[in-house]
């Protein structure tokens, strides 16, 4: 249990994190199981159906979110402390005695199918999905989204959901986080109520694989006829959250594409007017999540924009960044740090992350010093070690006739052309 008393407003965020109950633990061809299980917790317990659960939480002035990310399942609610007792009772029910009713499972499978169709129809989400599908090998869990594809989710049955919940939702992996207008001893009492009488069985660790799909840089295009713009994703598999260079990589990324005043954004947006915005980022997960540059550009500037991105990646690997650029990045990251913790839910999320990734007790206290310690040489070193132009995957979603020739001209060979349906199948 983690308690962070903050007495300013009469609000408390209660968060329950179940480590290992995330999508990374999905068995092969059952992608989407963790997400479905998390969502199904709210769809009925031994005592009340899904409608009653929703209504009773909302009668308390709150709503519960229950979802899986890659590494955990998380339930969270923010409400007035006077209503916390009742909310904890309800939370206990959804966490400890979910009923997994067949009717609601079928409904959620149908809603997921609807979501997939919306995803395929929207170029930006299609580009996100296409990038990971093309970045990771067919054996990798990351090649399919957290919520799975239509074919994987269609096969998820009640037995699989019950099995997963039984195996993964255990006290040894669960952390209860209470942030806000609550005293520590009250927090202890409430957390204990959530976790009492819970049988303790250690679940097996996930045995999922993470590996790159291509060993060389490639260009790909997902055809979207008459698209008004071209969505670009350029990147490759990177390193896990636990990597010792987390701080230098964070600073390097800020300079490259993590700030408005970053090299990639100033280049593509302010200098060339190719786009409304361009940014780069590392997606930190328990295993090697991707490094990716994202931008939506003028269709006729797709090739030029990609070239600028590649040039910026090359430049930060070759030349040491200026002292000015380094200080902008470190000043920003260190200075903005406290601004990120104004709300009880933001604090709860940060504490959940610390639990999940095993960050040490003084991580937050030392964050700013860790950022300030990064040098210009560190930035170049990690850029050289972790940005790998030779395996970059360049993925475009746009009109094939207009974009394919531009991609071909980049010099990575003829782009492979995919249909949205291929991305959906995730094969």
């Amino acid at each position, binding site marked *: 249990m983690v308690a962070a008393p903050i007495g300013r407003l009469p609000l408390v965020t209660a968060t329950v994190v179940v480590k290992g109950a995330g999508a990374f633990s999905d068995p092969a061809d059952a992608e989407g199981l963790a997400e479905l299980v998390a969502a199904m917790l709210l769809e009925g317990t031994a005592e009340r159906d899904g409608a009653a659960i929703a209504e009773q939480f909302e009668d308390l002035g709150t709503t519960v979110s229950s979802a899986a990310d890659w590494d955990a399942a998380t339930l969270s609610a923010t409400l007035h402390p006077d209503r916390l007792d009742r909310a904890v009772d309800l939370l206990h029910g959804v966490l400890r005695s979910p009923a997994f009713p067949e009717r609601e499972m079928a409904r959620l499978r*149908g809603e997921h199918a609807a979501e997939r169709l*919306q995803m395929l129809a929207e170029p*930006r989400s299609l580009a996100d999905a296409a990038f990971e599908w093309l970045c990771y090998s067919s054996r990798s869990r990351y090649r399919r989204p957290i919520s799975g594809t239509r074919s994987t989710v269609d096969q998820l049955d009640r037995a699989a959901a019950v099995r997963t919940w039984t195996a993964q939702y255990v006290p040894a992996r669960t952390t209860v986080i209470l942030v806000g207008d609550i005293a520590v001893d009250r927090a202890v009492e409430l957390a204990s109520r959530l976790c009492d009488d819970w049988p303790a069985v250690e679940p097996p660790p996930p045995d999922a694989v993470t590996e790159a799909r291509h060993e060389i840089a490639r260009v790909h295009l997902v055809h979207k006829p008459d698209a008004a713009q071209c969505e670009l994703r350029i990147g490759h598999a990177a390193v896990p959250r636990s990597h010792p260079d987390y701080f230098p990589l964070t600073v390097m990324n800020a300079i490259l594409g993590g700030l408005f*005043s970053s090299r990639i954004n100033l280049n593509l947006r302010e200098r060339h007017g190719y786009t409304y915005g361009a940014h780069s980022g590392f997606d930190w997960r328990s295993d090697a999540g991707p490094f990716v540059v994202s931008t939506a550009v*003028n269709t006729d500037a797709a090739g030029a924009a990609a070239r600028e991105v590649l040039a910026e990646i090359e430049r930060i690997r070759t030349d040491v960044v200026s002292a000015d650029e380094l200080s*902008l990045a470190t000043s920003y990251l260190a200075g903005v740090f406290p601004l990120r913790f104004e709300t009880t839910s933001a604090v709860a999320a940060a504490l959940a992350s610390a639990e999940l990734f095993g960050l040490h007790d003084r991580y937050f206290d030392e964050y700013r010093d860790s950022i300030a310690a990064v040098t210009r040489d560190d930035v170049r070193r990690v850029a050289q070690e972790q940005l790998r132009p030779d395996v970059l995957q360049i993925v475009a979603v746009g009109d094939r006739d207009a974009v394919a020739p531009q991609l071909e001209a980049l010099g990575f060979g003829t782009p492979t052309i995919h249909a949205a349906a291929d991305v959906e199948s995730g094969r």
Partner: protein
Amino acid sequence: MDIPIRAYSLANGLRVTLSPDHTAPIVAVNLWYHVGSANERPGRTGFAHLFEHMLFQGSAHVGANEHFELIQRAGGTLNGSTWLDRTNYFETVPAHHLGLALWLEADRMANLLPAMTEDKFRTQRDVVKNERRWSVDNRPYGTWWERLPALVFPADHPFHHSLIGSMEDLDAASLDDVADFFRTFYTPDNAVLTVVGDFAEAEAVHLIEEYFGAIPPGNAKPPLGHTELPDTFGTWRRVTVTEDVPSPRLFLAFRIPPFGSPEWYAGAVCGAVLGLRRGCRLHRALVREKQMASDVTAFTYDLVKGRDLLVLDVTARPGVEAADLEPEVTHHVDRLADGDISDVEVARALAQIETDLLASLESAQVRADRLSMFATYFDDPARINTEADRFRAVTTASVAAFANRFMRRDNRTSLIFAPGTPPA
């Protein structure tokens, strides 16, 4: 939950609201200019938003994009946004950088034009055109954003035309328009400045006077076109757009009393009863029971000029016929209009609204923006402390009366997206 407020004006007409809070060492600076797309002249749709972009391109003593860099270097966040009748600019910075944030806002209010160049203008126009493509043109249903106002406001109404603008009008705009717009609307007497967070009042008052005090007031901006409207649409207007979308989607709009009026709060609760989260009627009936919708939501535009709008936004599951969606939704609206409403539902809506209002006070910048809003729209920033009371005054009877008066067939506009090939 009362937050401290001190409101005063400078001699040049700039209205100032100060609200100290020493919980965290940060401070939020927020500026509302009382100008938006509604003030655009014909042939210049999207200009107010393009102008907003230009405001980040430097000023007399600030280089291009230097505003962003200075604030980020200070460990702060910043942005701006354009709406129908206001444009806001805001920074949140560590407390000791209050002076920097105020000085930057003052420099561009006082003296934007020396930094404006043809090159910057052309670049920002390209950026804005890409923003339009990204947020409107290159996504399914994206054009609802312009189609709905065009349907619910008459053609000569200031809120009728597209906020992000047409490509043609953006191409027709020039640097002269920038100078004109700036001199007309970006004046201290047309602005409200709010500071929230960890600052000393005396110091803030002093800095604001020092940086903003000498800026001359404007020459009375031209009045907005007529925004008065009849209480209801007087009819049920229905438009179907056939497009390459994955499933049907309905936007059902009602014309309602202006934001902040006594009846408006009952209207907001109507919206919540029908469309808030998962305990609402439409979610239970259409998402859970009939499984014919995947998403349901309700929102208001929060307009104080003329009349406001309450909108129900329902996305059908694939395979549902576009023509079948609307009757399913209006069945529940009709029930509400006929007085079928329970104390439990009203209490549920109010409980959530109350928590949401409380949560909105957590962030200094959100608080600052709401203070600027109450100052601009009501000349009363202290209203932030009584909003919760206004909601609590809503009763089941007043909700029923509202629905009866404003949610019937004579006051509806339906915008329906139907999957298919658009007509040539």
